[in-house]
């Protein structure tokens, strides 16, 4: 099949053997995100401790792109400072919106560079962003709760 440019081996690996999958305790915030056009969904939990993303766990159903992208995301954010992880998330978003025009930085995105081809398939970009958007939402909520938590 000729669609190797979209379905990179790295993507297929993460799809078949997703990292950090399954919901875990403890966590600060749980969110549920859906892609209304295709019905893909993810339930995602985030734990933030001392400004660091100490754990991300998730469950959900979706296509290879959404599942693999969520798996790669957990590798990239777990154990990182929230600020740094947010920057990575922005870099991934920029790559997805590039329509194939951006050369991804492997130092920043690691396995995430395999998704460069996805940006040429506008219908699939939302799939690739599902887990990332859920993580960003949950993390922002966790940070807001901890900073407001003193009150």
């Amino acid at each position, binding site marked *: *099949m000729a*669609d190797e440019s979209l379905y990179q081996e790295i993507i297929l690996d993460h799809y078949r053997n997703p990292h950090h999958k399954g919901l875990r305790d403890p966590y600060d915030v749980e969110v549920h995100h859906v892609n209304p056009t*295709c*019905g893909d969904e993810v339930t995602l939990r985030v734990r933030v401790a001392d400004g660091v993303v100490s754990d991300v766990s998730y469950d959900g159903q979706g296509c290879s792109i959404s599942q693999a992208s969520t798996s790669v995301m957990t590798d990239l954010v777990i154990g990182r400072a929230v600020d740094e992880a947010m920057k990575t998330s922005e870099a991934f978003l920029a790559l997805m919106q590039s329509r194939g025009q951006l050369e991804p930085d492997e130092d920043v995105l690691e396995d995430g560079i395999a998704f460069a081809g996805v940006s040429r398939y506008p219908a699939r970009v939302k799939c690739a962003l599902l887990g990332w958007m859920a993580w960003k939402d949950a993390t922002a909520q966790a940070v807001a709760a901890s900073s407001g938590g003193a009150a």
Partner: protein
Amino acid sequence: MTALVDAGLAPYDVEVVRADFPVLARTVSGHPLVYLDNASSSQKPRQVLDAEREFVEQHYSNVHRGVHTLSQEATDAYEAARTTVATFLGASDPHEVVFTKNATEAYNLVAYSFGNAAAGSRFSVGPGDEVCVTEMEHHSNLVPWQMLCERTGATLRWIPLTDDGRLDLTDLDTLVNERTKVLAFVHVSNILGTENPVDVLVARAREVGAFTLLDGAQSAPHQVVDVQRLGVDFFVLTGHKMLAPSGVGVLWGRKELLDAMPPFLGGGSMIEVVQMSGSTYAPAPERFEAGTPVISQAVALAAACDYLSALGLDRVAAHEQALTGRLLDGLHALDGVSVIGPATTESRGAAVSFAIEGVHPHDIGQSLDELGIAVRVGHHCAAPVCRRYGVPATTRASSYLYNTAGEVDALLEGIATVQRFWRR
């Protein structure tokens, strides 16, 4: 061809039909295009494109508003289109045909009109009243009724589905009862392919005095429709699924009802006398065509009706049934592939949803596109159906009058290729 001969119909030359559709000659991903997304929208033949172009190039003007020649010619063409559509649907009076922008607007038109009716009128809907739909409705014939119930305090009920993709009519007599104001249901399902027993549902609605609305978005393009024989009060179609451009749909309704129903959208053309203190409204169909209508699209829709009538919808239906049978047989023969919806061509349209074990529909659709095969993946605007059958989405192949047995075989081979790729 044997199905046609068996049915006593003249042979159907699909290659002659295909020659009318320029897009069918193109390639996708280096393969000949195999267009099997017709339940979503059909391709357009030259005859329809030519009719629209000729109208716009030679006779175009606004309608109903002028004395000059073009205005008259445009009005004549627009009204002739109404007559053509009425004849196509077996309607007795062209004034029963309301042009809308699509099917979705037509359901909203009826739902909002009923919602606008004064309390005590036969159209009014309020607390204690019920609206009944089915679990297999397209969102467009579901959400407007949910919204009507929310606005008025009425209760929405629905006819559930059986495991084999049909309406479960066990509790029909309680679901459609003396409190039921409207029974709105789909003629042929866009996701399951099921053709529903209109006679049974209409008979029950009549017993309790409920209005009936039939969603014909997936039937009118594929089979002979006779609204009088169907016995419904309202029938809806959408042009883009039946060879016409997007931007035009039709609400057919019994004249006596349309003339008595309150308007939905207000504006120009739908009025009789306008004073600052209030207005009176034109009779149907103008009452429901506020503003400049969809003029050239309506002319094109009439050309599409003419095209379908000339070809013979009974022959089209027989051709499609042969393709659907071939596809169903092929899918049943594949390991790890299951059909979601009726398993045979019995009371069934050409839309076939299926699942491939272990492969997500998005990935199936993408992989088939690499082979030039266009199918639709997702919930097909019928999310409750996916939920009912426990799938996040389906892959749907839907053929039309220009598809061939060879294309069905290409899809079946494509599915086998997809399975090999994703099972590595």
